[in-house]
């Protein structure tokens, strides 16, 4: 069957509607998915025992990973459904599941109110989010690609590719706007729920837009011709002819694309906040500005892949990323490192605050020491200690937080450094929907392309923050042990150790892609 569409057959107006409806829905799903990640620090304090902040943070990362680990299962479940009953109905179901789960997270009482049921419910809803996302992307990409004319598939599907970054961008904007509109206490108490709750409105709108769309023409033709396979899973993964391409898609493209994606967006944010100690708001502005500047390049590289091939665009982005990550992160670290800046003489300001913790006999003392630097940067050392008003009880050990606010020139330099990483993301990610769609036949396309995409992104990419944080923490601990033993430190720059994960995974993927991926295949014919 030649199910390819000629340029004449494609109704441009209808095509724009298809792209818009698919992209808006996918954008909302990404938004829903990312607000959890962007608010992970707040969520850790609300839903996980706060005795040990590191444990609470790791618990959140674990939940985050759980959200990613189930994505391939969502890809299998909904992919099969999409190949059996159609693309349109399947990605409407995923949209509704995602909307319900996100809204429900915003309603769950905290750990202090309902105990362990709270994190359990969060985990379950997070798993549902992961399942829904696993089904959404493949459906949207397949749906748009199957409507597109030959020679423009990279350009058309690139609109779907922008949604992941835009979803993250909008999630950051909504969080920042919510924070700006209320006090820090109000945000910590209930304000963090607002980004979750407003999702239900967006999902509702998207549902009604998608409801009026037609099924994919290729799927309709395949169905009319009786070419729908009874068992897409068996067909995709049980037959060597298809399974070898599933493996190639994973190890030669999506695995590397996943780690580049997560390094450029999530690890960059985590690094700015936790390693460079840049304040929450400023670090989010840096990421948001970089994403805003870089998002248009998804379309450009999607278009370019129609002209010069998907392989060359994706592999160039991957190679640039693995070669430059260490110098880029080194520069990010040094830009925020106040020990390399000149302190303004006599700028030291000390402020001390006391307040009673509600419903307790504890008194919280906060000492803020602020230093100013000639480039406009400031460093705040915030030392908080909790003590009881009853004598005889030992006060707790004080906690010291370092908060850096970088000056204007450093701020723009950091935006540039993150923007370069976003550019790499657009190179590897812009053409990948078209690349995956062109690898598999209509009857098993949804299933076959969804699995490698979600293993590459969900597992190899999604685990990046946890693995990279662990590697960096391990290096720091080894240094501390060496210092205590009076030996030379084993890691010169422990904060860069986490980057070995994306560099190695990306490197292997680059070699496999270079050797085995066919750079000339742009056919969608079965």
């Amino acid at each position, binding site marked *: 069957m030649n199910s390819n569409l000629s340029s004449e057959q494609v109704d441009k107006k209808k095509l724009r509607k298809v792209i818009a409806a698919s992209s808006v829905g996918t954008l909302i799903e990404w938004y829903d998915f990312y607000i959890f990640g962007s608010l992970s620090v707040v969520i850790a304090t609300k839903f996980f025992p706060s005795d040990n902040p*590191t*444990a609470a943070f*790791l*618990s959140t*990362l*674990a939940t985050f*990973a759980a959200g990613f*680990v189930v994505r391939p299962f969502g890809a299998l479940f909904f992919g099969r459904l999409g190949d059996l009953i159609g693309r349109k109905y399947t990605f409407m179901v995923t949209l509704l599941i995602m909307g319900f789960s996100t809204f429900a997270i915003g309603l769950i009482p905290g750990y202090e109110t309902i105990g362990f049921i709270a994190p359990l419910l969060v985990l379950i809803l997070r798993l549902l989010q992961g399942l829904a996302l696993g089904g959404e992307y493949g459906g949207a990409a397949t749906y748009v690609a199957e409507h597109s004319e030959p020679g423009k598939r990279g350009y058309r599907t690139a609109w779907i590719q922008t949604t992941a970054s835009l979803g993250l961008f909008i999630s950051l904007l909504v969080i920042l706007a919510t924070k700006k509109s209320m006090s820090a206490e109000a945000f910590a108490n209930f304000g963090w729920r607002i980004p979750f709750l407003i999702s239900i409105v967006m999902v509702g709108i998207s549902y009604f837009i998608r409801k009026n769309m037609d099924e994919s023409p290729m799927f309709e033709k395949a169905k009319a011709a009786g070419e729908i396979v009874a068992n897409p899973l068996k067909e995709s993964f049980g037959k*060597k002819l298809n399974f*070898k391409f599933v*493996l*190639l898609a*994973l*190890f030669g493209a999506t695995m590397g694309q996943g780690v580049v994606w997560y390094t450029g967006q999530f690890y960059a944010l985590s690094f700015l906040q936790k390693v460079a100690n840049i304040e929450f708001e400023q670090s989010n502005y840096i990421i948001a500005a970089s994403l805003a500047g870089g998002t248009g390049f998804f379309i450009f590289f999607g278009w370019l892949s129609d002209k010069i091939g998907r392989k060359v665009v994706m592999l160039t982005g991957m190679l640039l990323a693995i070669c430059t990550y260490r110098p880029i992160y080194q520069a990010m670290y040094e830009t925020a490192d106040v020990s390399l800046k000149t302190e303004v003489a006599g700028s030291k300001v000390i402020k001390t605050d006391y307040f009673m913790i509600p419903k307790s006999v504890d008194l919280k003392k906060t000492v803020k020491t602020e230093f100013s630097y000639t480039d406009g940067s400031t460093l705040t050392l915030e030392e908080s200690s909790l003590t009881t008003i009853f004598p005889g009880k030992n006060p707790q050990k004080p906690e010291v937080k370092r908060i850096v606010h970088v000056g204007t020139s450093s701020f723009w330099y950091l935006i540039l450094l993150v923007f370069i990483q976003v550019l790499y993301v657009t190179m590897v990610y812009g053409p990948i929907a078209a690349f995956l769609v062109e690898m598999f036949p209509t009857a098993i396309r949804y299933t076959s392309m969804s699995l490698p995409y979600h*293993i590459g992104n969900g*597992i190899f990419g999604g*685990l990046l923050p*946890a*693995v990279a944080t*662990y590697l960096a*923490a391990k290096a720091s601990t080894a240094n501390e042990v060496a210092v205590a033993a009076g030996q030379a430190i084993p890691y010169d720059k422990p904060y860069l150790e986490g980057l070995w994960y994306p560099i190695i995974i990306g490197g*292997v993927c680059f*070699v*496999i892609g270079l*050797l*085995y*991926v*066919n750079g000339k295949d742009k056919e969608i014919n079965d």
Partner: protein
Amino acid sequence: MNAIRQIFGIVWILLGLAAGYFLVFEQSLKLFEKGGMDNIVPAIIYTFILAPLLTGGMCIFGVYALQNEYKRVD
């Protein structure tokens, strides 16, 4: 070029096995022994997710490459 693709099949099999060995024996077991949530979480991830995926997937991929299954790609 097809001969290079074929020979590299051995590399992928060895890499898959090495990754599995490193993740399970060099990382996970030591982390399980140490205990504590911050060690057990990555140990579980390495043992039950990354290791099977990398080892199983890479070995099958390597076998297919050795069988010259990817020669037709070009």
